[in-house]
């Protein structure tokens, strides 16, 4: 029984992750503004250590689905869920394997 629950829980988590992984549908243009406002202060200012083109789209999706694993999450303060979605939408849309990878700025 315990084993079954574990399997169900794992399945549920996997499904949840999968659905979240494909839910990066925020406003990417606003996400760019929010990224600059909230993230760039730490993540460099130009040709930074982190930009949309640091990762491929699949990795941004995974990260969005597992935001708890992001080391700096504790520094995010009161960024709303809607704003987070916009930021990840920006990161995803301009990922390095996207049709339009981000340039330095």
């Amino acid at each position: 029984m315990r084993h079954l629950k574990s399997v169900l829980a794992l399945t549920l988590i996997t499904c949840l992750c999968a659905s979240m992984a494909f839910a990066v549908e925020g406003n990417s243009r606003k996400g760019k503004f929010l990224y600059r406002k909230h993230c760039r202060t730490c993540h460099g200012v130009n040709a930074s250590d982190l930009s949309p083109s640091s990762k491929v789209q699949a990795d941004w999706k995974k990260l969005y689905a597992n935001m708890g694993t992001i080391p700096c999450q504790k520094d995010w303060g009161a960024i709303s869920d809607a704003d987070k979605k916009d930021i990840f939408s920006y990161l995803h849309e301009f990922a390095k394997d996207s049709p339009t990878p981000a340039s330095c700025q």
Partner: protein
Amino acid sequence: MTTSATSRPGRRAFLKGMVAGGLLAACPVQTAGAPSSAPVPVPTETVFTTCDMCFNRCGVAARVTGQGKERRILKLDGNPHCSKSRGMLCARGNAAIAMLDPAERLTTPLLRTGKRGENKWKSISWEEAYTLMADKLRGIARDHTPCGMLFTPGADTHSQFVKRFAEAYGSFNVTTHESLCLLSGHRAFMDTFGEVPQPDLLHCDYAVMLGANRFEALVMPDTADAMQAMRRGAQLIVLDPRPTKTARLANEWYAIRPGTDLAFLLAVAHVIIHENLYDRAWVEAHTTGLEQLAEHVRSCTPQWAAAETDIPAEAIIRIARGLAAAAPRSMIYPGRRTSDYVDSTQIRRAFAIVNALLANYDRKGGLMSTPAVALKGYPLDAPWYDHNQEDRVDAAMAPMLFKAEGAFVLTREAILAGKPYPVKGWFLYKTNPLGTAPDRARTLAMMEKLDFIVCMDVQLSDTAFMSDLVLPAPFYLERDDPYFVVQGGPAGPAVMTRSAVVPAPGQCKPAFEVMQELARRLDLADCFNFSLAELKARQEAGLPGLKEATAEKGLLELDVPLYGLRAGQPFKTPSGRIELFSQQYADKGLDPMPVYQTPAKAPQDRPFRLVAGRSAAITQSASTNNPLLFELEPGNTLDMAPEAATALGLRDGDMVRVTSSVGEECLRLAVVPGMRADTVYMHTGYGGLSPARKRVHGVGGSIVALQESAADAICGNSAIHTTYVRVTRHTETV
């Protein structure tokens, strides 16, 4: 990636072996028009800068004499330290000196006082110009949102400040010249390789050029590399409906039927795959979709392609085998302008796919990965405007737009329709859509939909002529620019400098200064909170050796690896591999592999396909009016095959009337042996509207007045080889 100021002696010394040593010496110069008995002025100083007469950005050594008001440039030479340009400077580069004559230039802000096109202007002060612009831009943002302004920056280094201003102002509608030129090729290679590679013609042993005319439409270092490679025995195969100089100098030339490149390429893939001529281990390790591709090209036999292309099947087989035998030092040359057909992205996908089968990526003599070189800058914190549109005005008009570039032809349609929202203002900097975009009448109609048009340029271009406010920009020899990166293929990347050699005439102001002041007046000063000198200092601080190298040589050539850059790394594609089969295309309802369609037959009353190209002496409309270059290209002709001319009863030199579905132009006929009988050609940049460009105003025919409007179905790039024309004798006295 780490970089250093140390040049690698082997590579660059080899390249510089081509440069005549005499270029290093500043020789006495005979200036044009000087009487032969007059003392020959001698340059007292050499200033290194970077040419801006076209996109190539070749190093320049300006030979200068005098000081203060007496300071003048006697001659321009190639910078012997510049490996990318081999120390050379072409006719256009040399002719830049003629642009310093104030009589050729805009020297003060001009406000239109009559109707557009009436050529009635009054000079105004910069203060008046700034006040007007600030009022108009504020009003458009208020009434139509910031996206109500369209921005069209040019390609020079100051264009980045126009883009920066547009973002600060809040407009997503930035449309560049690239969407009239090269985006289909970029789209195709991005979606196949995950980047746009550079050709290494220098070390290539077997290259096929489809439509590219590298010995006239100069691209450095490709032009020099192809010449040098041929000298050591490399094979060049050219497919072109015209007998270009490149075609004439090639080892083999085939006058391919226009619009059938894809059939040729699919047949080449057929031969390589079905004769097992590819490096199976490399292809299997680096690509995805080989099985689907093999099935896709199974029926694309050389015999099938021969009937489509007019290239004999035996030749197609021989070329495919030649490419495969020389691989990986062989290539389908990617080319530059790719704005040909509505399926140009798919055609260029086939370029990329055949190159993948040649296993030439990131290898010497093949397609090179582009080394990453980043220069420091000032980050932009643009405001967010809740009162704005959701996206670009052309966002929904092509499935895979480049969002930073847009698509001019599609944007124009959106503005004409007023949908999805109205655009009412236009700011242009050093670009001339009325001279470069197809269907000039449609661009004029679009301009009639706009309430306010500002055009900043060095001359009264056709677009400036039809604008409301014209701003005088300095020419490159009068301007300080930020440092910028050029990629030189096998010559490696370099950081270039561009400094004012002589002062600008009249009241010319650089774009940086104009955009900064306009931003200040719109309460956006925070977005331009630095000076050009501070920006350059930051760039210098971020790249040790930059300041010293540019002071000494005019550039810093970076010693970085050029081959094997991506070894062991995934490609920047969704699959992490070279995508012969594109799942993302399939997901968007696009053909995942290029599907050939036989071109539609020419209309009965317009039997000739009109194709475009470039001469070595002109760069579109930007340089045709140059007095020195006009001596070399004094107008354009309609090039036609002898048999076609004979059938029409026309002879070389006759005046002809050329009629398309959108326009009619008159110019002289040139009978060109070797042309395909179903194809005609004319240079771009003539038959201009602006009387200020007096040499080309009404001289020759305007190709953009004839070209019909069409766009690449995937990325929206202009498609300028889709026009058919009728040619008749022009009987009026000329």
